[in-house]
Each structure stands twice: as C-alpha cells, then as structure tokens.
C-alpha cells in the first residue's frame, strides 16, 4: 500500500542510467537498496511486481502510465504488448486500485 514509493523508484529508474545499471545487474538487490528492509516503503507484493517485472500488476496497483510505459520500454516490451499486459493485469487482479490512470472502457 505504498504506491508513492513504487512510482518513486520507477521515476528514478527512468531518469538515471546508474539506477538502470544497478537494476539490470540485480533487480532484487537494487530495489532493496532503495526501500530498505520491511514493508514501510514497499510491500512484498510491490517488490516482486517491480523485480519480476509484472507490468499488469503495477498498472493494477495504480502506477501512472507516464512512468509505467517507460519501464515497459526499458524491458523491451513493444507498445501493443504493453497495452495488453495492462489489460491482463486488470483481468487477473481487478480494477486499478488508485490514481487517475484507470481503465475506462470494457475489457
């Protein structure tokens, strides 16, 4: 339940080559350096969504699409596939939990 920190990590990743290379080398360790131990900043669910990576889960959690689309591109995910993964996230996990990037059409 810490969407702010999920987005903060992705914001830093999107704009910083050094954060990107740390993530590429070891995503789990990189996210832990950012968030520390425990669930104060990132829950277990959020950590694995970031490290898997699970684009659909991140969308469901409410990550702003302007941040998420660059994370998808960083992982080499093509545009049409990115859109489909978000839909899959809604199918699997339910509606977007918070924020203004909710789905407005039918699945």
């Amino acid at each position: 339940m810490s969407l702010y920190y999920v987005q903060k990590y992705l914001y830093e990743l999107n704009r910083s080559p050094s954060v990107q290379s740390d993530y590429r080398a070891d995503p789990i360790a990189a996210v832990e350096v950012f968030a520390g131990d425990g669930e104060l900043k990132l829950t277990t669910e959020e950590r694995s969504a970031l490290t898997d990576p699970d684009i659909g889960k991140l969308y469901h959690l409410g990550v702003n699409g302007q941040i998420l689309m660059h994370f998808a591109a960083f992982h080499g995910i093509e545009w049409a596939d990115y859109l489909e993964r978000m839909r899959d996230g809604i199918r699997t996990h339910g509606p977007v939990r918070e924020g203004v990037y909710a789905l407005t059409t039918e699945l």
Partner: protein
Amino acid sequence: MSLVFAGVCSHAPGITGRSDLADPDKRDALYAAFDDLHDRLEASRPDALIVIAAEHFANFFMNNMPSFAMGMADHYEGPIEDPDWLKIPKFTAPGNRDLSGRIITEVMKTVDVSYAEEWLFDHGIAVPLNFLTPNFELPVIPVNINCQGPPLAPLHRAWAFGEALRRAADSVPERIAIVGTGGISHWPATPDSGRINEEWDREFMDRWCRNDRSELLDYDDLTVYADAGQGGFEIRTFLAVSAAAAGAKGTMHFYEPIPIFAVGCTTATYDL
C-alpha cells in the same frame, strides 16, 4: 518588446515514436501542419520561445511538485526517453538564463512559480521542438504546469499564469514566442490509449479560438476526466496560451484524431 507569436500543438510521443504504425496519409498531413506551424513561428522572428508543457515525471515528482515551474539555464538536454523509443536523437537545446531570469522575476509579481536551473526535456517539449526548431537554433524557455500528479492548480490559476507570462513577455526587449503543448482529450499510456473524444475536442477548440475567458474556464477536472480523460488535464497549457493572447482570436489549422498517436492531433495559433 512584446509577444510576437502564440500557438498550441500536440506533443504525444507516438507522433515521432510510433510514426511507422500510423496511417501514412494522416501522419504526413500532420507533419505538414507542424511544418506550417514552424513557418508561422519563424515568420514572427522570435528571439526566444517559451514552451508551456505538461511534463510526465522527467524532472518533477510528488516529493516536491510545483504547480508552475520555469527553466532558467543556458542549455537543456533531451530527450529523457530512450532516443530509439521516441525516435528523436539526443540533443542540446539552447536556453537563455538571463532572459529567463527577467521573465521569471516579472511573473513572480503575481504568480508563485518555481524555477529550475536544470531541466531534462521529455516528449512534451522534445516532440514540438523536433518540428518547430529542428536545428535547435532558437533559445527555449521551458515552462511546466503540473497536469499529472493531483492536486492540480485549478484552471483559473493556469489562466492567471498565462496572463503573467504575457505581462513578462511585454516587459522585456526581446521578441517572445509562446507555444502551449498537450492534450486535448486523450487517455495516454492506459489500455484505452487511442480513445479520442473528437466532439469534445472540437467544442474545446471552438472555445479556444473565440478566446472568451468565462467560456474557457467553464470546465472542471471531474467532467474533464469523464469526457476527456486524464490526458485532458493538459488543457491547462492551452488555457495559459489563451490568457497570454489577451483576447486575440484564434484559428485551428489542423485537427485529426490519430489513434496510434493516442490523441486528436492539433495545431492552432492566435492572431495577435
């Protein structure tokens, strides 16, 4: 000297990044409209270009989010996105720190604006510049209105900001051009990407061209969100240009919904 140019255009990253996926006729017509906007801008012989954009977490985040921000540097770099994704190569755009400082000082007399001595351009500025100043020869003053991370400054404050920019432009000896970039209705970077409310867009642009303050401020974020999507929050940039145009009437030169670009692609100018 004064404001010599005021216009608006779209900035969606797909316009360059997904150009190969669009209907070629529509894409080429849009690119021709951008070229026409370029020619109009050049004909106004500006000394500097203020770009009012709505950035997307390139420089500003919810740890310290300004409602209004302006760049104050001698150069800016971009794009922050992967150049292969945006299909715009890395560039350095000229700024003018001294001119920015004088304009910001004047704006501050009525509007609290943050200033930034470094600023990475994202597609919100890089896509318009790619067409309007492709050789990066014109000094740019980047401006941001927060349209991404609510709470957002209400529309009448975006209007007041536009008025302040006009007063500031009129207070300096340089010839100032201003371009707003954004929206109009769209649902970018969601699974609804490609949804466009053409009727809403045309009604909005009719109002934009008439440039009547009360008509343009007769929107609110709840109805904008329902009718024009979260991307519609970017009308703030268009409204700021309307206010800067100080009652001048406008012309929409181009409008075409291009779903793969995720927006009704638009160019328009005011007859100052």
